[in-house]
């Protein structure tokens, strides 16, 4: 009898603060598995952002720098330039990366910083209580779009994976989901690619993960999981949008 599935070493053996059915836990595990795969736990620096992802240092067994809201790509830039032999990743939500931190992510990507960016898109500001995010779906009700997101006033949800794939500095850009076993297996594979880019010094790597936020969506975990496939995937198609090194 062999243990065929267990907790990755890069993930601490402790209970997370995430709500039941929140996909952050899955994304954490996939990132930790990638670090284990390349044996880089001891040389990795994580950059935490502001939001539900802020407790990165509590869950990953790696060194961590906490960044101001949206600034993780700039902080990661400073860390990677100072320690180019280390693996540096940022982990950011949609409000953090696609609203307040738009300038930082675009320019880190455009400079081709040799970092890995994990972007969790759950269409809302989780930590602050479910406000409208730049990725909130048209018509989606949130605590600051009580009548539903109106594209004539609020614009349309931003597709970051496609947007960043337009930049010459980007090596890898992909969107995955963790709402089904099949999607998790694909996410696992592409998460490893996103880290492989850095391990092999192939340039900036970006991986967007569609995720459920049952609590702020006002749904039970299974219904929220279902929504990812039914509503998000059609607007935010899964796939690899840029892969310059064909990894």
């Amino acid at each position, binding site marked *: *009898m062999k243990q*065929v*599935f267990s*907790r990755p070493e890069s993930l601490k053996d402790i209970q997370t603060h995430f709500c039941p059915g929140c*996909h952050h836990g*899955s994304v954490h595990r996939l990132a930790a598995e990638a670090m284990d795969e390349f044996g880089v736990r001891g040389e990795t620096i994580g950059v935490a952002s502001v939001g539900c992802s802020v407790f990165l240092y509590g869950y990953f067994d790696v060194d961590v720098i906490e960044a101001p809201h949206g600034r993780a790509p700039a902080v990661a830039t400073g860390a990677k330039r100072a320690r180019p032999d280390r693996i540096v990743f940022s982990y950011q939500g949609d409000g953090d990366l696609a609203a307040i931190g738009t300038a930082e992510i675009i320019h880190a990507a455009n400079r081709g910083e040799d970092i890995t960016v994990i972007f969790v898109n759950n269409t809302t500001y989780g930590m602050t209580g479910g406000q409208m995010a730049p990725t909130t779906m048209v018509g989606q009700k949130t605590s600051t779009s009580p009548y539903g997101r109106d594209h004539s006033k609020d614009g349309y949800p931003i597709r970051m994976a496609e947007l960043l794939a337009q930049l010459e500095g980007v090596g890898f850009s992909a969107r995955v989901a963790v709402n*089904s076993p099949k999607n998790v297996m694909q996410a*696992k594979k592409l998460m490893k690619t996103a880290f492989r880019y850095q391990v092999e010094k192939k340039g900036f790597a970006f991986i967007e993960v569609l995720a459920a936020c*049952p609590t702020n969506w006002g749904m039970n975990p*299974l219904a929220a999981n279902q929504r990812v496939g039914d509503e998000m995937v059609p607007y935010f198609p899964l796939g690899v949008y840029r892969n310059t090194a064909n990894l």
Partner: protein
Amino acid sequence: MPHIVIDEARCKGCGLCTIACPKKLVALSDSPNSMGFTVAVFSDASQCTGCTLCAEMCPDVAITVFK
């Protein structure tokens, strides 16, 4: 015999494992753990193939799989 072990203390009862199992061997119970979550339970080990899909879906890394 392939089987899974669910860490009751870590389970938050989200049920994502229940939709992952191709043989429907995992179900939510009525019994709460120390956190008050009604936890997932594994039954009929004889049918488990050790495919790991339940564990892959669990956001809380609460399932260990043996094969």
